[in-house]
């Protein structure tokens, strides 16, 4: 019983890692091979990056575990202020 939970713990991380590698390769592939038009490339690679970061936060950084509500709240507030700041600077 204990052994299976331990294995699934590592297994989850390996699968998550494989997804991250795939997302990274996809982003590089899109840019190197000019697959999509110039207007679409930024939103596409940005979406790939956001998915990868969500994977990092919820698997590697354990936000999926119980009792992570405050951690998630801090990050959401941080991201909220961060996005406003970044867009504000760019638009300014």
């Amino acid at each position, binding site marked *: 019983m204990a052994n299976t939970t331990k294995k699934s713990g590592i297994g989850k991380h390996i699968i998550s890692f494989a997804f991250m590698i795939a997302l990274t390769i996809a982003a590089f592939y899109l840019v190197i091979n000019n697959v999509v038009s110039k207007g679409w490339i930024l939103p596409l690679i940005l979406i790939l990056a956001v998915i990868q970061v969500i994977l990092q936060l919820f698997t590697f950084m354990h936000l999926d575990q119980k009792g992570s509500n405050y951690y998630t709240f801090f990050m959401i*507030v941080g991201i909220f202020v961060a996005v406003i700041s970044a867009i504000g600077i760019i638009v300014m």
Partner: protein
Amino acid sequence: MSAQTETTTKDAPLHLETATFEGKNKVLGFWLFLGAETVLFACLFGTYLALRHQTLPGQPTGKELFDLNLVALATAFLLTSSLTSVLAMHYMNQQRKGLMQLWLGITVLLGLAFLVLEIYEFVHYVHEGHTFMSSAFGSSFYALVGTHGAHVTFGIVWISTLMLQAARRGITKETAPKLFVSSLYWHFIDVVWVFIFTLVYLLGKVG
């Protein structure tokens, strides 16, 4: 004391990092810090994105400078080090010190490899005429990527010294929260890098 911890390790997946009140507070406080770090990097990203085309005639642009092969290699190093760091935490919670130290050691080595690549890259850029002082593009580029590189450097020193402490004191309720928090920091560095390779290098190549 030690006999008690030995018996409990096999029962359930322990979370040694939050076993004490101090440990819990350490992790909570660290997430607050990471939220603030997010804002810091967002401001640097915003500045870079606003200024990335501001070069003088004749100065190299991002499109000419950036080498995606090098960036892909650096990304591979940092992404893999994020996995090795999480494996180290897995073995920490199983009280397997040897395996934890092994994976932490690999994490540090991958971090060093990343740093060597970045230094090589910066030196190359300076020879090409892309410096901190050359243009607004240069200033904002080095401010953003350099701040990230400084974080990697600090992470390497931090994790190495914690490895020394763990070697002396073992995996205890005092050392575990420190190791866990340093691993969170390391993952966060990787999170920032994901946005750097996307918004600086890939977007730079697009133009």
